[in-house]
C-alpha cells in the first residue's frame, strides 16, 4: 500500500432496489492532492461520495483513512474522520455575518457561556488572513457574491479541522475571475496538506485544478489519469466511450424576416435597460455576459416572472398586454429557468405529470377529467424522445439524477409546442452526454421553426448551439456576433 495515501475506498459495491450503481469501485486519495472525480450523470460518482459522507451505506467494500479501517455510517462519522463536504447547494444563513456563518454551531463563548462576538470576529479574521482573502467579517452573507459564499463554505469546513475536503460542483455558479480566486485558495490549502476531492462537469476546470483524475463509468473505475498528461478528449472518451460533442447541423434559416419575438426598449431600473432584441422563427439566439450582467433578469422579465419599468414584448408582431407566465404560455412562449431545484419541477410528482404540466387541459376528456391512457402514452413517447433515463414514467422526478431532471423540465416545455422557447442556463450541472442530447433537441426544435433564446454563461455552449450571440454588459447590449464568426477567447474578451 502506498505510504502517502490519505484516503482509500476499496471495492465499493452498492445497489438500489436491485439496480447496481457501484460495481466494485476503488478510489485513492493522496495526502495534499487535488483529485477530481468525473463521470456522466448516473455513473455513480455522487453515490460514491454519499457513501463517503455516510448518507448511503455501502453493500460491500472498505474505507481506509490514514491506513486505518474507517467505519462511516452517518454524516457525523465522516466529520469525525476530518472529511468535510462543500455541497453544490450552499448551506448559508443569509442574515448572519461572515464570521457567524464560518463558526456556526461553534461560536466562541465568553466566561458566562454567552456568545462572544468580538472573539468570533477575531478568529474569523485570522482565518481570512491565512488564506489571504479580503472580506469584511461583519458583512451579512446574503449580500455576498457567489464565489465569496463558496469561500465561506470552505472556511467553515476548515474550522472543523478538515484534512479531506470534498467540493461538489463548486465552480458551476462562478464566473471566470471568481474561478481563478477559488482555484488559488484550493492551491493554498493543498500546500497546507489538505487533500481535496473535486467533483465537476467542467472539463477545463478539472484539468486546471487537479493533480489526478479518476473517471467513473457505469459503476466502475474507468481509469486514473495525471491531469497534466491528458486533454479534454481523453476525459470525454473515458467518461462516454467516445467523444460526443460537436456542433449540430443546422438547417438554413428559411425566412429571417419572420420575427417570432421582439423586445422594444425593455428596461428595469438598475438591472438592465434599453434592450432591443429580435428573434426570428427557426433561429437560436444566444445571450452571454458575466454574472450580474443581467441575463437571468432579462429572461425572467420577458416571461413575466419579474416586473419591468418600461418596454414592450411583441410575439409574432403583436404586443402582449399582460406579461404573466400563464398569459405568455397562451401566446406560445415557454421557459426553462436557471434554478432547476427551486423552479424546475415538482419533486413528488411523476415524470408523467411533470412533463405534461403545461398541457393538462389537452390531456382531458370532458369536464376536466383526465384521460389517463392518453397522458401515459403521450408522456411515454416524450420521455423516449427526450432520452430520459428512468425505471418508469411513474417515477417521481425528485428521484432522478440532475441531467434527467433537466430533460423532464425541457420535456414540459417541448410538450407545450411553443413558438418561442426561452432557456436560462439550460445545461447547468448536466453531464457532457446529456448536454449533447439537449443541444440536439434544441437544434431539432429550431429546424422545425421554433425561435429559441439561450441565456448562458458557458461560452462553449453558446458557440456550439446558437446562430447569433448577443453580448450583454452591465445590463446593456453591446454587440451581436455570428457564432460561426467568433471563438471562445474573442467572446470572453468581449464580455469582460
Amino acid at each position, binding site marked *: 500500500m502506498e505510504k502517502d495515501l490519505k484516503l482509500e475506498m476499496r471495492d465499493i459495491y452498492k445497489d438500489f432496489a436491485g439496480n447496481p450503481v457501484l460495481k466494485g469501485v476503488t478510489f485513492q486519495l493522496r495526502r495534499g492532492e487535488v483529485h477530481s472525480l468525473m463521470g456522466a450523470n448516473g455513473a455513480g460518482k455522487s453515490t460514491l461520495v454519499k457513501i463517503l459522507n455516510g448518507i448511503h451505506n455501502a453493500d460491500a467494500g472498505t474505507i481506509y483513512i490514514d491506513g486505518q479501517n474507517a467505519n462511516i455510517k452517518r454524516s457525523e462519522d465522516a466529520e469525525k474522520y476530518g472529511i468535510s463536504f462543500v455541497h453544490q447547494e450552499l448551506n448559508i444563513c443569509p442574515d448572519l455575518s461572515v464570521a457567524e456563518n464560518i463558526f456556526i454551531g461553534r461560536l466562541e463563548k465568553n466566561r458566562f457561556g454567552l456568545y462572544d462576538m468580538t472573539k468570533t470576529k477575531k478568529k474569523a479574521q485570522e482565518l481570512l488572513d491565512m488564506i489571504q482573502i479580503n472580506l469584511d467579517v461583519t458583512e451579512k452573507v446574503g449580500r455576498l457574491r457567489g464565489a465569496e459564499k463558496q469561500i465561506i463554505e470552505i472556511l467553515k469546513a476548515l474550522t472543523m479541522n478538515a484534512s479531506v475536503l470534498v467540493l461538489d460542483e463548486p465552480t458551476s455558479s462562478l464566473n471566470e475571475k471568481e474561478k481563478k480566486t477559488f482555484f488559488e485558495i484550493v492551491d493554498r490549502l493543498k500546500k497546507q496538506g489538505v487533500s481535496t476531492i473535486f467533483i465537476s462537469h467542467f472539463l477545463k476546470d478539472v484539468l486546471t485544478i487537479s493533480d489526478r483524475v479518476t473517471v467513473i463509468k457505469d459503476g466502475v473505475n474507468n481509469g486514473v489519469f495525471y491531469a497534466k498528461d491528458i486533454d479534454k478528449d481523453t476525459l470525454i472518451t473515458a467518461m462516454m466511450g467516445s467523444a460526443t460533442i460537436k456542433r449540430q447541423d443546422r438547417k438554413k434559416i428559411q425566412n429571417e424576416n419572420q420575427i417570432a419575438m421582439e423586445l422594444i426598449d425593455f428596461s428595469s431600473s438598475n438591472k438592465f435597460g434599453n434592450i432591443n432584441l429580435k428573434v426570428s422563427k427557426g433561429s437560436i439566439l444566444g445571450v452571454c455576459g458575466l454574472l450580474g450582467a443581467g441575463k437571468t433578469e432579462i429572461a425572467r422579465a420577458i416571461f413575466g416572472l419579474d416586473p419591468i419599468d418600461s418596454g414592450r414584448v411583441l410575439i409574432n408582431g403583436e404586443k402582449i398586454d399582460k406579461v404573466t407566465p400563464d398569459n405568455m404560455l397562451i401566446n406560445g412562449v415557454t421557459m426553462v429557468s436557471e434554478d432547476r431545484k427551486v*423552479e424546475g419541477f415538482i419533486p413528488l*410528482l411523476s415524470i408523467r405529470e411533470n412533463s405534461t*404540466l403545461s398541457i393538462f387541459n389537452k390531456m*382531458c376528456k370532458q369536464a376536466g377529467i383526465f384521460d389517463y391512457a392518453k397522458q401515459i402514452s403521450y408522456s411515454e413517447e416524450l420521455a423516449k424522445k427526450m432520452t430520459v433515463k428512468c425505471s418508469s414514467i411513474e417515477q417521481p422526478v425528485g428521484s432522478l439524477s440532475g441531467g434527467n431532471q433537466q430533460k423532464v423540465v425541457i420535456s414540459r416545455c417541448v410538450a407545450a409546442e411553443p413558438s418561442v422557447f426561452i432557456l436560462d442556463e439550460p445545461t447547468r450541472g448536466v453531464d457532457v452526454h446529456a448536454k449533447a442530447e439537449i443541444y440536439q433537441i434544441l437544434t431539432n426544435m429550431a429546424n422545425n421553426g421554433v425561435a429559441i433564446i439561450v441565456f448562458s454563461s458557458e461560452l462553449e455552449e453558446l458557440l456550439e448551439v446558437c446562430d447569433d450571440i448577443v453580448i450583454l454588459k452591465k445590463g446593456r447590449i453591446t454587440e451581436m456576433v455570428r457564432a460561426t464568426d467568433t471563438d471562445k477567447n474573442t467572446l470572453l474578451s468581449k464580455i469582460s
Partner: protein
Amino acid sequence: MKIFKRLYSNVAEQMVLIVIIVLFSVVMSIVSPYFFRMSNFVNIVQYVSVYGITAIGMTMVILTGGINLSVGGTLALSAWVAAFSMLAGVPWPLAILIALVIGSAVGTINGFAVSVIGIPPLIATLALEQTTRGLQLVFSKGKPLYGFPEGFLKFGAGKVIGDIPMSVLWTLILFVFFAFFLGNTRLGRTIYAVGGNANATKIAGINNNRIISFVYVMCGILSSFAGIILIARMDSAPTAIATGLDMQAITACVIGGASVTCGGKGRIFGTFLGIIIMGLIQNSLDLLNVSAYYQQFVQGLVIFAAVALDALRNKQSGKGFKIPLPRSTRSAA
C-alpha cells in the same frame, strides 16, 4: 395476484392507518359486545360527519401548503344566517344556498388574502375566524335559533335506505366525490402540483393565485355545508357552535398523512381514515365507559402514536430520496 398488487400499491401509503383501524376493531369486538354492529359503525361515521366534511376542504388547503383556521367561524356564521333566513320564512333550499354563498364568500376573502395580498395562511384565516365569529355574535346577540322546517331537518338529519342517517350519506358522497376530483381531474392534479412546488407551476404557466383561491373557496363551501348538517341534527343554531372544529379537521388530515410542513402530500382517502380513527377512539372510550375526564388525554395519545408511526415509516422509505425543504405558497403565489 396482479389485482392485489395494484390494490396494495394504492393503499400502501395508508397501510399503517388501515392496520390501526383493523387492530382497534378486533380488540374492541372482543372487549365490547356492542361494538361489532352495523348500527355502531353508522354511529361512528355520524359522529365524525361534521368535521369529516370540513376536513375534506382542509385537506385541499393543506395540499397547497396552506392552513385554514377559519372553518369554525365560517360554519357558525353561515349556519346562523341559514337558520335566521328559514325562521324569517325563506324556503329551506334557498336558505341552504345562502349558507353556501356565505361560505364561498369567506373562502374568497381567504383566498384573496393569501394569494394576492400575500398574507401567510395561518394569519389570514385566523383573522377571518375572529371576524366571522364576531359577525355571528353581532347578528345573534347571543340568542340561539331553533324550530326549523320539516324539509330541512329531513335534508340534514333524516334517514334513508333503511336506517342510514343523511349525515352519513352526505359524508360518504362528498368523500367519494372529492377523492375522484383530486385524483382524476385536471384541477385536482393541479392542486397537487401547486402544493408540490408553486415556483415550478408558475413557470409552467399555471395561475397559482386562481388555484389557491379555489381551494379556500371550496373549503369555505364545505364548512358551510357541514354547518347545515350540524344545525339540522341539533334542530338548533346555538351561538357557541363548532368550537375547535379547525383543530379537529387539521388533526384528521394529519393522521391521514397530509403534510402541514410541505404541500403536495396527502390524500382524501387518508383523511377519511383519519376521521374514522378519531371516531373509533371516541366510540371505544364511550363503550368502555371511560370517564369523560380521560377522553381528551387518550385521544391525544392515540393521535400522537398514529402520526409518529407514519413519520417513522416515511423516514424508512424515504431514504436515499430527499424531499426538498418546505416552502411557503406565499413566496411564489
